[in-house]
């Protein structure tokens, strides 16, 4: 497993949480949210956005508009291959005796 840290100054961050998806902008009230598996989207000032898949963890917004996302596992979305993912999902489904149809 890789351990990585990323610090960015962003305009908006969209986070998948157990309470639903939320978008965090500057000046958001302090919150603590548990992450559910999904895609975190970080939108920077230039309009560019980065997307990461996170498996779980916590996101905390503290006073002073700082947002910390602490995830068990996180990977850039571009590291995923759509075809391989579909194949893997199929295999896992077979393993658990489920089928997509």
């Amino acid at each position, binding site marked *: *497993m890789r351990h990585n840290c990323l610090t960015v100054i962003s305009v908006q961050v969209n986070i998948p949480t157990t309470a639903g998806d939320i978008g965090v902008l500057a000046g958001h009230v302090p919150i603590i949210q548990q992450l559910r598996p999904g895609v975190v989207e970080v939108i920077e000032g230039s309009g560019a956005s980065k997307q990461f898949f996170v498996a779980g963890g916590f996101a905390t917004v503290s006073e002073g508009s700082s947002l910390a996302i602490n995830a*068990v596992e996180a990977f850039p979305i571009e590291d995923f291959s759509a075809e391989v993912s579909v194949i893997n999902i199929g295999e896992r489904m077979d393993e658990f005796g489920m089928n997509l149809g």
Partner: protein
Amino acid sequence: MIVASTRLGKAQRAMAISRIYGETTKEVFDKSEAAVPENSPKKLLIVMSSDKGLCGSIHSQLARAARARLEKFPDADVVAVGDKTKAQLSRTNAKNIVLSISQIGKEAPTFNEAAVIADQISQLGKQYDDVEVLYNKFVSGVSFEPTIRPAFTTAAIEEAPKFSTYELEDEVVGNLSEFSLANYILWGLAEGHAAEISARRSAMDNASKNANEMIGKYSILYNRTRQAVITNELVDIITGASSLE
């Protein structure tokens, strides 16, 4: 020596990252001014060390700190991570040890290992009022100090004076407490690992230096003795030869 240096670099990198994880977790507790409940009858002390020796006083200092803590709280339970502290603590405080974990600290620690430890602790099924993580804090390449970091329980988090400034769902608090414990365990493991590798390197350095010194001393002794024997033989031969003249 080269191997030790690369391992130290690796350990220090792992530590730097675990510090960010740990401090991010800590920030919430700092900002909400969480405190250990004053009346905390049931304490748990998690002692972070490893299985391997030959690294100076790393393990014994940690064990000493643990013992000092146990003198204050004689009823506290202890989770010993690593065979070294387990061996040292079981001499004096065997009854306190509720769980021991070995085979840790060969490589730089990972979150998976920390999560497994946290999971085993929660599987003990005991309720603790206060959980403390005791580890060797990496101060610099040549020094470390045993440090105690309180990991807050669900109750302690909920009672924190400023915790209400955060918006969250109630059922998340327990998960937050467990997740932060795993993070703190990782932090402790990583700092302890870096301190250990660095202490081992200087212990090995000193051992090499002492051995080289001994080699020097014995070489001189060997040469002198050899010279003395040669001189003696020469004296014998010359005396013998001159008596024949």
